């Protein structure tokens, strides 16, 4: 704002943000524990008392909530490292990082390198860790694009630069789409747009781009939902089904003319199967009511109606909402709001354009994930495999989210007048 002398009262770190992050991490451990242990007859405390120490540790290492704790630790260390290397120095590696992730995104598509899970190639098996390049690609993408756009605003008027920026968004987008990981790919779009917008890309470019993206999305949806068989874009069947479920389309409208009743039944069954996750998540959230059923007391979670495969990662919010109710949900959203707005404040106070753009990129990335994930838990958004940052179980996601927080802290530490 102005040239401030060093203010003794002001913390070096954005402690409000750190507090909110700490709160989210605690919520994360508690509810990954609940989601994975609610139905286990023997809990943590009893295991601790009944097992010998070595056995107890071995047991712990097997349990997802403890692995999550470990990931939190690893993530925290990474975040600290990221925090104390000035972001300007980090950015020197931006293009290198970008190309490394692009290569790993290509590698993931190669059979025998990328490992297949749930019908998608998203992981590279490193033995101890299933590495998910798309998560890291998001960060590398932010660094590269922020670096690219941090040049003086006047240069951005050149259409050539605009196209190059678009290409930088498009390359990882297409590669991640190919995995397929629609959710992670889609997250890149608002992030990229926000960066270009804040960087000062001329309005007319942005309007046209926005218009084009909107038109494409609309055409895409119309095609998926209404086009006859031969005219449809090739999508993975589950992706198409998810969109159909989201928009409440009857699966049987796509039946061939000569479909037998058995075929129709099969389609209806598939519709029930496909909407099962969403329906159960809604029942979980809705039946939580205002105050929730209590930690580890959610029947949807405990008795497996909320599918166990997703309860601790993509649908962790349903578990929280069921067990802690509307109050719990508001608390979680408030914590995210604190993180996001302190992030925007950091962007406002950043020393240079690069810092500001990096902060905006990180904030929009986190925000998009939060919005899409919570949105799909309450059926405001279609189901896509987007984790809830910091809360969902998953090494790559936790690591990247914490590094993202580290970047924000980094920019905050090196803010103007400090």
């Amino acid at each position, binding site marked *: 704002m102005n040239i401030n002398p060093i203010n003794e009262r002001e913390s070096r770190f954005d402690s409000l943000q750190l507090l909110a992050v700490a709160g989210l991490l605690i919520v994360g451990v508690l509810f990954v524990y609940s989601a994975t242990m609610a139905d286990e007859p023997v809990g943590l405390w009893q295991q601790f008392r009944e097992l010998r120490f070595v056995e107890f540790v071995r047991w712990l290492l097997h349990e997802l909530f403890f692995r999550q704790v470990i990931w939190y630790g690893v993530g925290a260390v990474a975040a600290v490292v990221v925090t104390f290397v000035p972001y300007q120095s980090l950015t020197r590696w931006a293009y290198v990082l970008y190309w490394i992730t692009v290569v790993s995104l290509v590698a993931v598509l190669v059979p025998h390198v990328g490992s297949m899970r749930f019908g998608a190639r998203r992981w590279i098996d490193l033995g101890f860790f299933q590495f998910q390049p798309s998560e890291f690609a998001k960060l590398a993408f932010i660094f590269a694009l922020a670096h690219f756009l941090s040049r003086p605003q006047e240069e951005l008027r050149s259409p050539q630069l605009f196209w190059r920026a678009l290409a930088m968004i498009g390359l990882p987008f297409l590669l991640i789409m190919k995995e397929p990981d629609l959710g992670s790919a889609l997250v890149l779009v608002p992030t990229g747009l926000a960066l270009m917008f804040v960087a000062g890309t001329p309005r007319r470019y942005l309007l046209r781009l926005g218009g084009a993206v909107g038109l494409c999305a609309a055409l895409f949806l119309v095609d998926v939902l209404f086009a006859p068989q031969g005219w449809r874009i090739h999508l993975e069947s589950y992706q198409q089904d998810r969109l159909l479920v989201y928009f409440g389309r009857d699966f049987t409208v796509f039946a061939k003319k000569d479909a037998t009743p058995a075929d129709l039944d099969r389609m209806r069954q598939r519709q029930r199967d496909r909407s099962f996750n969403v329906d159960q998540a809604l029942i979980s959230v*809705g039946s939580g009511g205002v105050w929730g059923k209590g930690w580890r007391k959610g029947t949807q979670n405990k008795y497996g109606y909320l599918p166990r495969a997703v309860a601790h990662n993509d649908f962790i919010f349903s578990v929280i909402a069921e067990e802690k109710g509307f109050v719990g949900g508001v608390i979680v959203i408030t914590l995210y709001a604190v993180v996001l707005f302190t992030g925007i404040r950091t962007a406002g106070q950043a020393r240079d354009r690069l810092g500001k753009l990096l902060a905006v990129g990180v904030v929009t990335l986190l925000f998009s994930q939060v919005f899409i994930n919570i949105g799909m838990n309450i059926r405001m958004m279609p189901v896509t495999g987007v984790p809830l940052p910091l809360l969902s179980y998953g090494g790559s996601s936790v690591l990247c989210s914490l590094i993202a927080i580290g970047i924000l802290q980094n920019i905050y530490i090196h803010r103007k007048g400090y």
Partner: protein
Amino acid sequence: MLIFDQLKKNDPALRLVALAVLVALSLLLVGLWWVQVVRGRYYQAKLVDQSYRTVRVPAPRGMILDRNRKPLAENRPSYNLGLYLEELSPNFQQQFSDWLSAYKQAKIPLRREQREELGRRARYAVASNLVAQVSGLFQTPLNLDYDDFERHYAQERAFPLMVCSDLNRDQIARVEEHADLPAGLDLDIQPTRYYPQGGTTVHVLGYVRLDNSSVSNEEAYYDHRLPDFRGIVGVEAAFDPQLRGSAGEKAELVDNLGYRQQESMINPVEPGMNLVLTLDLDIQKAAENALLRAEAQTRGAAVVMDVRNGDILAMASAPTFDPNKFVQGVTPQEWAQLNDERLRPMFNRCMQENYPPGSIFKPIVALAALENGMNPKEEYQVEADPRDKAHGWYSKDGITKRDTAPPGMYDFKKALIHSSNAYFINCGLHCGMRNIVRVGQKFHLGESVGLEDTRQQVKGYFPDLKRVSSGWSDGNTANACIGQSPILVTPLQMAVVTMAIANGGKVYWPRLLAQMEPQDPTLGEATVVYPAARLRDELGVSRRSLDILRTAMLDDTENAEGTAYRAFRSYYELPGSDRLRVCGKTGTAQVQNERNITTDHITWFISFAPYENPRYAVVVMVESGSSGGGTCAPVACDIYRSILSLEQAGPARNTTLARAE
């Protein structure tokens, strides 16, 4: 807002981003509020819908006791071997993965549907293997139907799948010896109806069938029903609602795979009431045994009634059957036996069939005649049958009726103990059918005796005044006077007739149910007492007429000329002064086909005792007997002997119930 203020005013782009984030997060909050607060109830209801299963829990059925509280019907535990699919799920998975790896090794790729099919087959293989093991253990063939199994797995997984129900003692022993019963198999115990007396009293009690459907006023939808019984006929049917009480409802919380997690009682069961019948088991047994001795394969009935109040002390019908068979279901072979055209064991002959009364109708004709000025001393000349000089006949005004009594001079007493048809046709024609009908109606012949709920009661037939006032000939009257067509009665109706003659003209409603008491008196439910001696009607005939009739009936057993004398001779020779003097009347009715050709005989003996102060009425009927005196009187005599020895053994007999009231 805190953070907004800190944003530079001259940075509209950042402010727009902040605004967008704010709006989007608010949108999430509104969405969350909508789902959790506004629509919370809707989703809670959906949750209950999908995760609770309701179970109908039948109430313990009430016992049926005789008047001395000896059990006639009670509940016993039945042991069922059930398969608990929830415990088998690791085995299912093991089998499935074994097969799957076999396919993998053979490098046969499986489509999704094929994998699912393989899963189903694996489940069935595990379960049917267990059933085969049990089959070997019991050495009885047991089968597990694939479709049944799949249905149970899909819909009722939380509940055991019945492998073998109602194990016999040997099978229970085998199960218990086999300490390491395979996992997933377990004995469970369900109450089952049990009749400790077997075939005794079976016709009164009726029987029950396995039927767990909801009764009216009860929740109609359940996910699962535990076995329950419903009375089909007899007392079990007549008082079924009281006996069965009301079923409770249990809610079971199940997980996404249908496995039971918790259970809670929603509605408690209300146990059924115990019924105390007026029957006296000892007299009932005596009556049944006496009937059995009458012939090789007796088809008959015996009713013992307390003439002072109408209590039914025994109601025996032969042949009998074992009602316990119905509890678990009868085999087709047994079913065929039970429906044997001639024996008809399931029929309660005491009240479920109409019979011509024959000569036992004569006391009613006598009462009508005596009331209408007949002089009992006046003698009547019975002429000899021209074709059979040893027997009399009635032939007048174109009416010809053959008689079994010899020709000669008859006064009332002689006519009754010889059962002279000619004499009574003459009386009947003299006093007129309308008067006979009036007396008969006082006995409520042709009407219900109030036990229609047992679904075993028929009403007989007795003409009314309208019927006899037109299109009714003297020939019809002659037929009616000797108890032939069109009059039809049941043994129980005749017991009521006998009771009224014995007690001086009081027609009581027969009483079968004495009281209804709660199974657990501490629960505060009241005992319902059904009063004895409910007066239905009074005969309105003079004491004199009744006395004349009773004295004549006494002579039937005591006078050497009486038709029942032979049966009772040895009985009267019994030592002891307090033996019961029996008044009786025999009867042998002809069963005629459409062409009036006699095809069969229904033999009867109605009686009451003691003469001086009557307490018991005993009515015996045997189908295809030789004669009332020859077939039925000995049965009645047997019953009196038993009653006598029972009275001598325990003077409290027949008063227990009165005391309990």
